């Protein structure tokens, strides 16, 4: 039975949040765990049932916390370990699970391990990182942060060798060929699991291991490490979940599920830019094609779907022609482009068009996978492209139209990031308080959407079958689980459309529209004619009476 079979993540609606950006209870200009705990009621009301926290470990914050200098503690800016435990308990009380980050691939160069490792070539922890005399090893490995890094090797002036880093130069890669490293990382994960954390998002997993003559991604050895971790989790903490962050093509991605013995979930990276492409092209082709190319995964496993996140909207997994198109359509200003991606939030990407936002969220909730909502997107927050790196999409949560948007009582100048101020996306216009008052606000609509999603497990767990109506502007598919069938019809076009669906296999069913619960005509012999307004979508339950 859903919810009781240990596969809770298949029914989850995940909320991605950065503790620093959510709510400041201490008045120092930074969000903290006590503040986050205070806002759990809001999240419960929204309807989400899992939170994914971005890294909150001690860190020099040169990569927004993904450069970790202490794995078993909490960054004092966000509170103490006890604050975290209190938050965890409060979340569990509200039946909200908590997923935290675990950056396996690399640490900060400020981490004591690296400080030791680099101190001399004979140090005991020397082998915890990947060192080399030359920077010509592992040639052909692509650079991920193209805008800032010129090489995957960095010269260490202290020990006079090169060290390997797939990300920023200040994030040296750990050496997973060293069993000590593997044991230590497990011990860290165990630390958090024992505390009660429900799962980990494992960052940058494709890059754990390197081998000469390969592209150093998705190596079998890497999968070996993951299987080992998974086995340990299953043995000692059954029911906890591992989520892979692997920005790869579907064929490579599905490898991370193994045969059900690696990750429970993985982000479907290639789908996300194609959803945006489909809406802009007004053509379902990019979406159906990528899903056709997506191999099936083991039964207990699940894709994770998202529209936006804390990173840039990545265009790594598209062709050059598609990337150029996305740049020209979605990132007209060069400043919006970063590292083969686009650093904008959902609402600005969709021209703040309410209908488009609803359509995209509707697809997010109805395509096969677990949806993740990025904090602030439920109220339609905007972005600030003038902030460096990806910080434009990490501005403070907008709670009200008052002081600091209700985020903090500190002086505005003390905030970790400037607030959104413009008349379109500013906190006076876009905030939780005002949207709560109206039934027609985006927030209220999102709540309804999430409620319908949660009450229909077929959306989380069911199979998918695409209908291919001749009108290519309409994306239509059925979701099936047991006796339940849901028909989803999406109009990707900005103009009204008529579409005829071949529903012969479902002849005799009455369609019940799931938002209003009104009935639509019964399916007969002839193609089923539907008309849709601009960007409109339908969810129909098929009922046979």
């Amino acid at each position: 039975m859903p919810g009781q079979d240990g596969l809770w993540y298949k029914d989850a609606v995940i909320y991605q949040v950065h503790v620093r950006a959510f709510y400041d209870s201490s008045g120092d200009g930074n969000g903290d765990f006590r503040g986050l705990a205070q806002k759990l009621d809001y999240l419960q009301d929204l309807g989400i049932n899992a939170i994914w926290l971005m890294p909150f470990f001690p860190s020099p914050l040169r990569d927004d916390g993904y450069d970790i200098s202490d794995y078993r503690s909490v960054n004092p800016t966000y509170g103490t370990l006890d604050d975290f435990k209190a938050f965890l308990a409060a979340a569990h009380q509200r039946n909200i699970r908590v997923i935290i980050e675990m950056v396996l691939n690399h640490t900060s160069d400020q981490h004591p391990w690296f400080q030791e490792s680099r101190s001399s070539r004979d140090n005991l922890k020397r082998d915890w990182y990947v060192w080399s005399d030359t920077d010509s090893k592992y040639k052909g490995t692509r650079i991920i942060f193209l805008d800032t890094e010129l090489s995957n090797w960095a010269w260490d002036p202290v020990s006079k060798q090169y060290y390997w880093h797939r990300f920023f130069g200040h994030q040296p890669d750990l050496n997973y060929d060293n069993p000590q490293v593997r044991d230590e990382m497990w011990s860290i994960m165990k630390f958090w699991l024992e505390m009660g954390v429900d799962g980990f998002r494992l960052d940058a997993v494709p890059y754990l291991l390197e081998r000469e003559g390969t592209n150093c991604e998705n190596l079998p050895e890497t999968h070996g490490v993951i299987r080992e971790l998974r086995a340990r989790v299953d043995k000692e903490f059954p029911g906890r979940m591992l989520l892979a962050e692997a920005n790869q093509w579907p064929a490579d991605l599905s490898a991370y599920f193994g045969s059900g013995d690696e990750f429970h979930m993985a982000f479907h990276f290639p789908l996300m830019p194609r959803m945006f492409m489909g809406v802009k092209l007004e053509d379902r082709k990019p979406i159906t094609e990528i899903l056709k190319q997506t191999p099936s995964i083991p039964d207990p496993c699940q894709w994770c779907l998202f529209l936006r996140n804390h990173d840039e909207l990545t265009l790594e997994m598209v062709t050059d022609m598609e990337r150029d198109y996305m740049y020209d359509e979605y990132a007209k200003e060069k400043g919006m482009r970063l590292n083969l991606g686009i650093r904008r939030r959902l609402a600005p990407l969709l021209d703040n068009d309410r209908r488009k936002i609803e359509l995209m969220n509707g697809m997010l909730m109805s395509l096969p996978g677990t949806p993740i909502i990025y904090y602030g997107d439920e109220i339609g927050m905007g972005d600030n492209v003038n902030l460096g790196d990806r910080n434009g999409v990490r501005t403070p949560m907008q709670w009200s139209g008052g002081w600091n948007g209700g985020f903090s009582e500190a002086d505005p100048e003390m905030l970790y990031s400037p607030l959104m101020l413009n008349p379109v996306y500013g906190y006076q216009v876009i905030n939780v308080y005002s949207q709560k008052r109206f039934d027609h606000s985006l927030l209220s609509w999102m709540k309804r959407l999430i409620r319908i999603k949660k009450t229909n497990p077929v959306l989380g767990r069911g199979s998918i079958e695409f209908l291919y109506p001749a009108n290519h502007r309409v994306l239509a598919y059925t979701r099936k689980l047991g006796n339940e069938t849901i028909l989803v019809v999406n109009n990707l076009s900005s103009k009204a459309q008529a579409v005829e669906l071949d529903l012969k296999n479902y002849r005799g069913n009455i369609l019940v529209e799931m938002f209003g619960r009104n009935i639509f005509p019964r399916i007969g012999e002839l193609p089923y004619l539907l008309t849709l307004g601009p960007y409109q979508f339908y969810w129909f339950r098929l009922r046979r009476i």
Partner: protein
Amino acid sequence: MPEGSILSDDFIRELINVGEVDIVVGVPTHNDARTVGQVVQAVRAGLLKYFPRERTAIVNADGGSRDHTQDLIRAASISDLNVASNVHALRTLHSISTQYPGGQSSGAALHTILAAADLLQAKACAVVSPDSTSLDPEWVERLLRPLLRDGKDLILPVYRRHKFDGLLIRNLVYPMTRAVYGCPVREPYPADYAFSASLGSQLLAQDIWTQEQGRTGTELWMALTAIVNRCKLAQAFLGTKARKEDAPADLVKAMRETAGTIFLSLDSYYSAWSSPREPLEAPCIGCQPTVSLEPTRLNRKRLYDMFKFGVSELEPVFFSILSTATHEELKRLAGMSEDDFSYSADLWARTVYEFAGAYHKAVIGRDHVVQALVPLFRGRAFTFLTENRDTSAEQVENNLDALCQSFEREKPHLLEQWAERK
């Protein structure tokens, strides 16, 4: 299908599925399975290469093919249902086909394509001939780019053709269009061309579709309409024109389509050509030398014989049509030997104009007027072939120019014909 409609219900349904597009490429066919597959693939390649982001569709108007012409067209679709692994397209490309009623007719095919382009709100529409086997993807770009980028209304083709190919166009249609309508377009009766949405709507709204010019010679009518309405014309150089390989030319049919259409247009557009007007420019984009000189097999003597035969046998008919002077001149010409024979440009221009006048006043049945011109044209063709037998490409062009000037010089004669016949 409802009465009087050229679009069937099924086709309308297909158009709904195609939806709004930026570009339509129309292909009129009738039993063209031998060549249309290649043509449509080249068109598709052109669209993918030069217009990858535009919404495009290929629309086939078929006159009742019994071979698998329509299947070949439909096979060019690109969709998420039938993606070939070697085709990389950003978007879906619909390639749809319909059969228009009433049997094969180029006018009905054009009507169907116009209607489809209009319903699909296409900004630009190109039409290509299903036997243009020399079509390469660049043609698509050359025909459509000036419409989309430069705001042109009609793009007519310019081909590299053998100097003796298209004699009727060279000796009658082109000179008349240039002299009477003041627009020097080389191919006023095009097989491959493109037009803008606004010109398309204008044509669609005209009341010609149930009449003769809506069934044959419609492309020529379209070009003349565009010229008369002072639309923005341009010519695009397309390269070598593929030669038709089967069915020998039916000159009577060709004469009906060309002379018949032009003569009819003189009635409708009298106010446009009868008063002096600024000549309409039609710049040529990417033009190169258009005359090729390979040796080719021709039966010249037959032309001479048929001219003589026609002049003698059709004397009572010519009596009704031509002025006495011209008629006498032709009889004298018919008495000449093959070596001395020369149907001068001036005489030919006068002949054509007098026929136009006779057509206008319907001194005999109009179709008979047009048919009677055929043997005389053969005489003119004979002279053209003789004059240009051993000439260079440049000389051919000069001779053609001289012919056009004759037509221009004799234009007052045409006006006289109109006045006296009135």
